């Protein structure tokens, strides 16, 4: 059995299907522009048809949603997005060429969902870009723009781990939470 395959129990499978249908129904309603019973029913039919024809890859979601932390996550994310956008835009107009670095960050929670979400959030914030990702070990190789020196690299690495912590706090399980609440480990040099 390859490490990519995730065994899901029947209950988990049903649960992830329901979440998928729910999401698609919301998209359908947004497309029509209003939430009506007609839209919800037709949306559910279309979503079921789509999921039967194009089944989603199994995603293990063991945690639960903590609304306050979700809000905190998004608030911080959008702040980062705005601040970093202007920083990077300013780099374009400033004379001189910016330095960059490729940083290896080993995530503490190794799961497809966690890795995907962290990677999405990291790469949406300007100035960082996922170059490679190793699914087996949960390692992200992040290209960062506007890095000044080695200290700055460490700070940026810590930022990513803190982002992971915020994400796990928002949607992670208890066990994952314990992992990320441990102090950020000192990175051994490669």
């Amino acid at each position, binding site marked *: 059995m*390859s490490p*990519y*395959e995730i065994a899901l129990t029947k209950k988990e499978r049903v649960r992830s299907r329901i979440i998928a249908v729910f999401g698609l129904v919301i*998209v359908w*309603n*947004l*497309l*029509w*522009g*209003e939430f009506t019973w007609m839209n919800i029913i037709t949306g559910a039919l279309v979503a079921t048809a789509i999921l039967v024809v194009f*089944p*989603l*890859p199994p995603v293990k979601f063991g945690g639960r949603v903590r609304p306050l932390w979700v809000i905190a996550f998004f608030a911080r994310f959008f702040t980062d*997005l*705005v601040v*970093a*956008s*202007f920083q*990077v*835009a*300013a*780099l*374009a*107009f400033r004379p001189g*060429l*910016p*330095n*960059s*670095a*490729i*940083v*290896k960050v080993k995530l503490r929670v190794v799961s*497809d969902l966690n890795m995907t979400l962290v*990677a*999405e959030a990291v*790469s*949406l*914030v*300007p*100035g*960082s*870009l*996922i*170059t*490679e*990702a*190793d699914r087996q070990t949960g390692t992200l*190789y992040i*290209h960062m*723009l506007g*890095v000044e*020196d*080695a200290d700055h*690299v460490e700070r940026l690495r810590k930022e990513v781990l803190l982002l992971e912590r915020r994400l796990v706090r928002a949607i992670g399980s208890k066990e994952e939470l314990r992992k990320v609440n441990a102090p950020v480990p000192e990175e051994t040099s*490669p």
Partner: protein
Amino acid sequence: MTLENVLDTIAAVCMITGALLSLAAGVALLRFPDLMSRMHAATKPQVLGLLLMLTGCAIRIGALVDITTMVLIAIFQLATAPVAAHMVGRAVYRDGHTRKDLLIVDELAPDADKFTEVSPDQSRQTPGAPR
């Protein structure tokens, strides 16, 4: 000053800021030395630029039916932009277009073999493959 004036001003500010971010992307495309840094400045501030432009649009139009459409545009843009950036970024590194002299550290270089050697279960594996 009426409410409409205030709203129009906010919308105008949002839209001009959005356009400025687009301009920054254009300048970065022309000025930056290597492909990687160009990608950063070119693709990311655009996302915020588009979000700002849509905010301005939502304020100006103000009908719920259209605002839901704009929410969808924003969601799709946020979900797809990183995928394109990652795919292109990976190709850039693997093709060796990175300027090594501008890199302070390169922690990918020691592990690069792991990725460039194409094995059936490394990069080609599609997550949705039947089991």
